[in-house]
């Protein structure tokens, strides 16, 4: 395949959102021991039980070794060279946007997230996380009127400890895996959402994450609780500044849906993927899991993964309640030297539970990606249904796409289907578009968008547009 010079220029174009905002940070020295965990907990002013939970997690983590089973390659991480806490200096805490460090606001504006405008125009409440401390939360009062709690998790631990305590770590315990243990020990901040019984959250909730300050891993912790009969849609989107060293991101997201509740969780991830040789770039090792605890509850994950040097995540659903529903819609793009090992787990425990998996992988350049999924039907999950569709599109002779589905069925009334295809963009399709006057680039963009449509239509409107744009930018120049 030949690549035109213009295309070459676009391929080698630098990461658009790459810059480091120079503001003073309150940062702990690198290293991880009990002292560091105590310091993080103290800085957050956490209740005693939280410190104990962190220390338990740390002691467990110290007995573990990093997992190596994923199809991703990277040098060993020195966990003692990472700084585990970094908070932007902002005095005694801002009361309104006016009090926020102007440099911070400038960063958001560069990213195209004008908080004020968004507040007014889109009706989205924004809990913006700059590094590790939530610095702006909006529309809190409107949400409060509906009874919805939407705040930083450190705040929730201070203000509603009895509400958080029984749920935190109940879906992803610290013993779950290496990075979940690490997160449980050192998580810096994140988001807490509580939707009371019967409430339909009046707006889409959204948090923008942004990694800043050199050499600080970001360990977000998100907990969303939807009480019986409630509904909430949560949007997560990320960009990151350009930097040289690999940066570890090990977040944990826990979702809990009670009877008849529904949680929709959407992610657009566009962190720095590293340079053309694969240097730098974010390591995105995330544990995301939803627990459909109540009957007829529903959890839906939608993700568009275009960034990060390495993406390693499996948003999962535990379908515990009878008639509960789990969904996973994913578009993953790897180009350059990006690697992604992603997929989902659907654990069917309740009767008549059903799950849908739609995964679209696009590998270009020397990108490598793996769909890894598990569908487990337990012996008691009578009438369980699963349908899985995972397709891979290959662009260029040096990319790779792998599919590793696990299907474990212990109930005779279960029905599972799995389909997967791997192909390149068909010459016939391309020829058809070209013969109607489309350029090769436009034709490919159109075909790829069609390929991903099933997933994009699951995204909230604003995100769908952004995701589509992101996809075409990501693939610019990948085809010749």
């Amino acid at each position: 395949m030949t690549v035109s010079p213009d295309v070459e220029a676009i391929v080698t174009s630098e990461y658009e959102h790459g810059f480091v905002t120079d503001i003073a940070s309150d940062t702990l020295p690198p290293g991880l021991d009990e002292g560091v965990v105590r310091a993080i907990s103290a800085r957050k002013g956490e209740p005693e039980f939280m410190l104990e939970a962190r220390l338990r997690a740390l002691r467990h983590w110290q007995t573990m070794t990093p997992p190596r089973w994923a199809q991703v390659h990277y040098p060993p991480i020195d966990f003692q060279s990472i700084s585990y806490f970094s908070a932007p200096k902002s005095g005694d805490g801002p009361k309104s946007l006016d009090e926020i460090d102007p440099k911070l606001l400038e960063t958001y504006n560069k990213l195209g997230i004008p908080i004020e405008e968004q507040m007014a125009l889109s009706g989205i409440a924004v809990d913006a996380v700059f590094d590790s401390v939530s610095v702006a939360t909006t529309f809190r009062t409107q949400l409060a009127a509906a009874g919805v709690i939407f705040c930083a998790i450190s705040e929730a631990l201070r203000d509603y400890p009895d509400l958080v305590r029984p749920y935190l770590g109940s879906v992803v315990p610290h013993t779950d895996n290496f990075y979940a243990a690490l997160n449980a020990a050192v998580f810096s901040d994140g988001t807490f959402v509580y939707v009371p019984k019967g409430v339909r959250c009046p707006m889409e909730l959204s948090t923008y994450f942004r990694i800043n300050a050199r050499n600080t891993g970001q360990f977000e912790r998100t907990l969303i609780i939807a009480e019986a009969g409630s509904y909430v849609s949560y949007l997560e989107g990320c960009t990151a500044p350009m930097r040289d060293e690999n940066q570890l991101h090990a977040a944990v997201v826990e979702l809990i849906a009670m009877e008849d509740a529904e949680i929709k969780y959407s992610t657009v991830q566009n962190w720095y993927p590293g340079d053309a040789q694969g240097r730098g770039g974010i390591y995105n090792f995330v544990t995301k899991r939803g627990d459909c605890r109540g009957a007829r509850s529903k959890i839906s994950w939608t993700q568009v993964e275009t960034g990060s040097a390495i993406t390693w995540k499996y948003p999962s659903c535990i379908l515990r309640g009878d008639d509960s529903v789990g969904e996973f819609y994913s578009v993953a793009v790897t180009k350059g030297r990006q690697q992604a090992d992603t997929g989902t787990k659907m654990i069917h425990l309740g009767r008549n539970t059903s799950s849908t998996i739609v995964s679209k992988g696009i590998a270009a350049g020397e990108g490598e990606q793996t769909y890894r999924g598990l569908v487990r039907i337990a012996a008691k999950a009578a009438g369980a249904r699963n349908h899985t569709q995972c397709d891979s599109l290959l662009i260029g002779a040096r990319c790779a796409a792998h599919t590793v589905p696990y299907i474990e069925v212990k109930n005779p009334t279960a029905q599972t289907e799995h389909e997967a295809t791997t192909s390149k963009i068909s010459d016939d399709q391309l020829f058809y578009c070209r013969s109607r006057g489309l350029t090769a680039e436009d034709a490919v963009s159109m075909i790829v968008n069609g390929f991903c449509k099933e997933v994009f239509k699951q995204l909230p409107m604003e995100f769908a547009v952004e995701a589509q744009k992101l996809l075409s930018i990501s693939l610019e120049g990948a085809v010749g």
Partner: protein
Amino acid sequence: MSPAPGFEQWLAPAPASAGGRLDWLQTQRAAARLSVAAQGVPGTKQEAWRYTSLSRLLEQGFVPAVEPVTLRPEALEPRLIPELDAYRVVLVNGRFVPGLSALEGLPPGVRVGSLAELLATDPDALKDRLNAVAGPDQSLFTALNTAGLDDGLVAIMGPGVCLPRPIELIHLSVGAAAPLLAQPRHLVVLETGAQAHLIERYVGLTDGLYCTNSVLEVMLGADAVLEHQRVQLESPKAFHLAALYVRLGAASNYRCINIAVGAAWARTDLRVRFTGEDAVCDLQGLYLVGERQLLDIHLDVDHQVPRCRSREYFKGILYGKGRAVFDGRVHVARDAQQTDAAMTNRNLVLCEGAEIDTKPQLEIEADDVKCSHGTTVGELDPEQLFYLRSRGIGAPLARRMLCLGFAAEVLDALGPEALRMHVAEEVGHRLEQAT
């Protein structure tokens, strides 16, 4: 280094046969012993053994069958397929028995017979061929087989030879006081343009407890064609391990049908590697897994060169407390452009307590390919059952009819007719118990 715990007995020295005097073979055996010691006993943490524990196998205390067994031809009779017209090679507990075999009328340029005999008479014909397909990095059970490598079937067809009748290999296990282990080693070589048909059958003479750990290496030259049918009908208490290594030359054609019905515990590893362009490989399988049975099938199809085509189609019926594992992998290497591969695994689960774990993987490193896989797990369609019942057919028969229909797709591909009838009868018999 000491051997892996539990397998010391498996490595008991082979009897002093002709092969024992060959330096190159001794070197291969010694390397295999070292490999066994280095590997240890794989646990369920290892991906290849994720769903299958070896503890049941290790508990049995199998000892290698060293005493030759004398059988009168009448004893074999009930295990023969009368109408099957084939060159017959009979192995009893892993050893060739000339008195039971029938090899008259082989055309020139063809050698079919005992591996031990050929090692004694013309070892040079084997020197560069034994272990050539299985390779130096052998899995535990292949290494165990190589360490005791002694006898089995050998079939070598010269260039352009077309064998008029199939070769039928009957591996018969005869019980003894102690549970016996047989480790037959087979080698099939088809040189350029040769054509042959191989039928492998594994049966027990009694319902006893025994273990078979067989390894088959198949080497296909350019344009060679091999029809291969493998029927595993071991006794209900038996343990069965089989590894098949196939290397396909340019424009060669390999077609394999794998029927697995017997044994209490069985594991099959099928490894196909394309080394010449434009070759075709068609793998089909049918497994029936019933009460307390475990059946584990692993496929590894490796497309190393462009323009090859592979089909993997496996169907399974599960009942009782049976458990089946299907782990299929299709790998397309970086330069293997225009590969066409499709893998399908369909499972029918008849009752509560049965379990199926299936994992069809694709690993693709080239872009101009057409690859797909599909899996289904489900029960019998209630509407189809209702249709049959409404026409006055009893529930058990209706269920059996639907199961036979499900199996027929693979069974119908079997040939010659005598073999198809034989297998269909066995499958039907087992489905009678299942439904």
